[in-house]
């Protein structure tokens, strides 16, 4: 439920505090950042966009941690496959 797309803030116009220009894969749109009141936002930050509003600031450290976990699983899987190959060669 609810399509949310990550976009990168490219500009926060100084005269309109609740708007930011956001880039999604080369496509730009102004989104309302009023729901992120109080969170410092800068160009280069990523936000989740839903119906023209930024709902949440994307936490890059959390994203990295999740990817590292997935890579860890991938590495373990590769090691197992390699071990399996080695053992079948021995046999």
């Amino acid at each position, binding site marked *: 439920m609810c399509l949310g797309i990550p976009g990168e803030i490219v500009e926060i116009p100084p005269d309109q505090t609740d708007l930011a220009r956001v880039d999604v894969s080369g496509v730009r749109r102004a989104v309302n950042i009023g729901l*992120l009141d109080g969170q410092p936002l800068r160009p280069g930050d990523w936000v*989740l966009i*839903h119906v023209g509003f930024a709902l949440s600031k994307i936490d890059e450290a959390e994203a990295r941690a999740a990817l590292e976990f997935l890579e860890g699983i991938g590495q373990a899987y590769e090691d197992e496959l390699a071990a399996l190959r080695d053992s079948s060669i021995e046999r």
Partner: protein
Amino acid sequence: MRFVDEYRDADKARALSARIASLCEPGRAYKFMEVCGGHTHTIYKHGLEDYLPETITLVHGPGCPVCVIPMGRVDDAIHIAERPDVIMTSFGDMMRVPGGRGSFFDSTAQGADIRMVYSPLDALKIARREPDRQVVFMAIGFETTAPSTAMTVLRAAAEGVRNFSVFCNHVTIIPAIKAILDSPDLRLDGFIGPGHVSTIIGCRPYEFIARGYGKPLVVAGFEPLDILQSVYMLLLQLAEGRSEVENQYARVVPWAGNIRALRAVNEVMELRPYFEWRGLGFISHSALRMREKYAAYDAERLFDIPGNRVADPKACQCGEVLKGVLKPWECKVFGTACTPETPIGTCMVSSEGACAAYYNFGRFSRQRVREATR
């Protein structure tokens, strides 16, 4: 695309898939409900079930805002839209949803002025541009979308725009999950929690599911690896005998949610005593209406609406599908009388609806397809 492509990696999926298989107890069947229709869409769109062992069934839940709108509310909206002084605005999702007397598209063919918008703010913009018309926004969606509607109303009030109003159909997810947990005909092993709703409400509201009902829940993101990882996390909880709320989608979902957004919703809207959900019937405290203070922006107060209850078509088993009791193809009319061209039920209309997802993306024998794509 960043934060998208990284989570669509086939190599990582294969590795996760192997882990998932190794966590499954031999001979045990697992049923997990993805509450949110967005997850249903992702699962079918990316062919995610190819990575799951056959002993794991993903049951599609009620979290599809379009699917749960009862026919009577669509009729009410059309009734408002047919007034010559009104411009009805709506997300594209609603345009084909059938009410008792047709859809928005049928209504535009009869001359009603119904326009698609991307954001409620776009509806407000139309109101500013056309001060002589009444611009009504057909508000649908769960907690994810309600704050955007609320912020738009607050903006309209601040600017003193008087020709803008909201036909409020926002619903809340927790009562629906509770209704499913209390329904006797479904045995579930755990939940894949709705990621984008949780950006607003946070993870705490699900704790009663883990504690009270003993079912694990993992709040999940919307890319295919997010969902696979969530299945893995659910299986791990089961294997370790835990029943907790976990957050797989921490890059987007803060544990506490978005207080600012909840405040905006609470300022503008209040819980309805009860609301009808299509297929699920009346559920108490499960939807939002505009507060008295914002009566001037409440289309329900501004316009006479018939408010008739329209019974779902007899043949339609959307309720059972929404509760996850029936798989889409098990419905009596699926794919024959009810198709995307001639939808009887809402589940066949919304791109998130389980029936539409299965019909459009998954309508084939997996075995034959495996042969064909080898």
